[in-house]
């Protein structure tokens, strides 16, 4: 079971490294915002897995806050790029 979660966390970290490479390379601002969005969704999954491994029920609240508030920054930057804000 421990080996299973080590493999899971390693594969998700590899995906996060791919996203950060796109964050460095990305030619426009939209690519970078999209990389930020994907990183935040990956972080929600990792936080829930860590809360399960540490056996603390209260640790799930952090990922709940991310799921509720995580899209506000992306929408603000998208409105700025559109010229509306």
């Amino acid at each position: 079971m421990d080996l299973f979660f080590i493999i899971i966390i390693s594969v998700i970290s590899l995906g996060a490294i791919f996203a950060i490479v796109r964050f460095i390379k990305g030619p426009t601002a939209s690519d970078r915002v999209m990389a930020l969005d994907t990183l935040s969704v990956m972080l929600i999954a990792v936080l829930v897995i860590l809360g399960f491994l540490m056996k603390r029920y209260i640790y799930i609240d952090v990922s709940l806050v991310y799921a509720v508030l995580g899209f506000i920054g992306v929408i603000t930057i998208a409105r700025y790029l559109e010229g509306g804000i």
Partner: protein
Amino acid sequence: MTNIEIILTIVSLVLLIIAGFFAVQKKDLIHAVIATSVISLVLSLMFYLLQAPDVALTEAAIGIALSTIIFIITVRNTKRFEDK
């Protein structure tokens, strides 16, 4: 620390250094704002790994929503590109 925490600490430290360098280096200020948001995201994971979920909660709420909105309004009211 278990193995999983060591893996996550190494990955998040690398991401933190890359995003911090990027935020200082760029001339387009929107890119710097996005890099600041990435720094706050990874810093929240660091606080979580150090077993301080209340600080991580505050960092999540302030860093990803409030400070991004304030920086974007500031860039809107001044200008987008830094002087060479």
